[in-house]
């Protein structure tokens, strides 16, 4: 709260929409009867991430399975309560607001942050027609609107997301739609809430490859029209790049609960600063620019470390080909290498003790 008061009159415009500060999400593993008195195993799904999302922004999160990108995404839209750190919406802490301690009502925040899930089959209530599913958000946001107007809005939006004839689609049940069409309905439903941020949690991963670009283009078109920001989660660097590039946003690379590199897609891919980004680039065939080296993975080990017992220091040091002694001791922080390009690697700092320490030997 005090931060808000200290700001000048012009600062409202550059205030981030969502501000994530040093957020940690730890899950405790349930203990069995025999482990009653031992320390519980803690999975650090997200371990100290700070990132800002502005108005009409795109943040594409990439990383391998289990790196915490979905958990971070859900934390950003207030679905997952962080174990530590704060997450604020327009300067108000979301979880404080939920407790009723700020001037904003939680219902406002709630409807401003929406989600599109990965599985189109599970994201629509099988017992409601498309028109019923879509009238619910309108009824919530515009209680005064008549049924006829509601129908007209739904039809025009369905046409807008490429589902024609809208009248026919509106009267269908979800099981009568294809996966791509269901995902379009999910997008339409999220947009009808007039949200500020939509979390697209692997929203295109379940779609046919040929439909992915189309769906991404649709989301980007509507982003401008509806003035929404997207947090786009993907495990495919090329999809993330496409989305962030066309949405004029950033790509964030996650590794074991840490954000290791954030930057504009073009820079991140042509000039990756973090060795892990390099690995991701290598793993994405059409991005491996020098195909001659494509057969050799740019890392020492393929195995992912146990998230319950993450490696000390830099978490990537067990697999990093450039790791040195210093990496096993200290954890690098995100630091700016150029405009809006940040990386958490000692190699970005020419004065770091990393350069003096000895190389790791397997």
């Amino acid at each position, binding site marked *: 709260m005090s931060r808000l008061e200290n700001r000048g009159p012009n600062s409202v415009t550059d205030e981030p929409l969502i501000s994530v500060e040093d957020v940690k999400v730890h899950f405790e593993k349930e203990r069995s009867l025999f482990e009653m008195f031992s320390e519980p195993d803690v999975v650090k799904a997200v371990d100290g991430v700070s990132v800002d999302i502005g108005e009409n922004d795109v943040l594409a999160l990439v990383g391998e399975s289990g790196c915490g990108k979905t958990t971070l995404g859900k934390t950003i839209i207030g*679905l997952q309560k962080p174990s530590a750190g704060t997450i604020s919406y327009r300067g108000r802490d979301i979880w404080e607001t939920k407790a009723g301690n700020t001037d904003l009502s939680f219902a406002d925040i709630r409807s401003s942050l929406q989600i599109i*899930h990965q599985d189109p089959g599970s994201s629509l209530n099988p*017992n409601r*027609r498309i028109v019923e599913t879509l009238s619910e958000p309108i009824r919530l946001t515009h209680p005064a609107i008549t049924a006829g107007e509601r129908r007209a809005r739904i039809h025009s939006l369905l046409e807008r997301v490429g589902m024609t004839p809208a009248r026919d689609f509106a009267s269908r049940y979800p*099981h009568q739609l294809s996966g791509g069409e269901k995902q379009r309905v999910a997008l339409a*439903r999220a947009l009808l809430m007039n949200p500020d941020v939509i979390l697209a949690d692997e929203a295109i991963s379940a779609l046919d490859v040929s439909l992915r670009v189309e769906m991404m283009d649709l989301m980007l078109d509507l982003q401008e029209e509806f003035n929404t920001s997207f947090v786009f989660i993907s495990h495919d660097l090329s999809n993330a790049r496409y989305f962030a590039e066309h949405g004029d946003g950033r790509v964030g690379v996650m590794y074991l609960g840490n954000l290791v590199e954030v930057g504009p897609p073009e820079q991140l891919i042509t000039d990756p600063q973090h060795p892990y980004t390099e690995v991701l680039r290598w793993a994405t065939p059409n991005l491996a620019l020098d195909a001659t080296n494509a057969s050799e993975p740019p890392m020492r080990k393929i195995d992912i470390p146990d998230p319950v017992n993450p490696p000390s220091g830099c978490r990537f040091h067990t697999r990093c080909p450039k790791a040195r002694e210093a990496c096993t001791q200290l954890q690098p922080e995100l630091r700016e290498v150029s405009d809006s390009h940040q990386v958490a690697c000692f190699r970005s700092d020419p004065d770091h003790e990393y350069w003096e320490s000895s190389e790791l030997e397997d």
Partner: protein
Amino acid sequence: MGHYYLRRTARVFVTIWLVASLSFGLIRLLPGGPFTLLRANLLRQGVPASEVDARIANLQNIRPNAPLWEQYFDYMFAAAQGNLGTSISLDEPVSQVIAEAVPWTVFIVLVSTILIFVFGILLGAIQAYWEGSRFDQLVSGVSITLMSVPFYVVAVLALFVFAYQFGWFPPAGTIGPTVEPGLTPEFVLSALKHAVLPIFSYTITGIGGQALAMRGNSIQVLGNDYVEVARLRGLSDRRIATRYVARNAILPLYTGFLLLLGFRLGGTVILEQIFSYPGLGYYMWSALESNDYPLMMGTFLVITIALVIGVYIADLTYGIIDPRISRGETDAY
């Protein structure tokens, strides 16, 4: 679509016809044959041997000396007209005995099955919301225990404790001996009092299974993304619980409900015997004991027809309740 309903309805009649034929055939295969006892009885009563066959034919719509296929047609035509012959042991038309017995059995079965569903669904839904809590564990344990106890064990215990030890409820019959049938308060009260123990023992052993089924379904539905989205839209918990979770979780139980109704009708054979409750099952048992073939066939037929109709209704209405069951129409995909 209409085609489907037509086919489905035709199948009901075919099934009932098959069941009737089967009961006719099976009973004729029983040792002694259906009319040996009746013939002996009539002879003992002093009916002249020459008239015995005519009397039997008169009573049972069947000519005992005719070829089997003629007997079969006679029986089927009479049954189609609602004439099921005359009970040998009770000396009353079978259809009349059944008509008097059916309301009591339907009352017990319907009430106990509805109770099972109401309580089972409530318990299961609460368990699902509080998954892993003390309450959930306790109810699951009790449910499994009750599921493994047969209803007739509970029935015998209930009869012993509540009827004989405490004397709270009458041990037998459908209404008190002095009560006149009619829509009077005494009649309703007496009927309820007589039905409490049978309904109780029939219900308590069935709730557990339904609760566990509902719990499983609800937990599965709760994990669906559309429930999370509904929460994100800020819908009230109550609306989510009823319109989103309960509705989708109850659907699979619906067919089970109508099937269970039919199967439990058959279970009354034992239940009504324990409580000397003169319903359908009670008469079926006494018919078996006294070699009363017409009554046996009649009760058997009615119980099976009830089951067939239960499944029929379930099939017809499922498409209305769950849009995903498409009644054979193909759309999309």
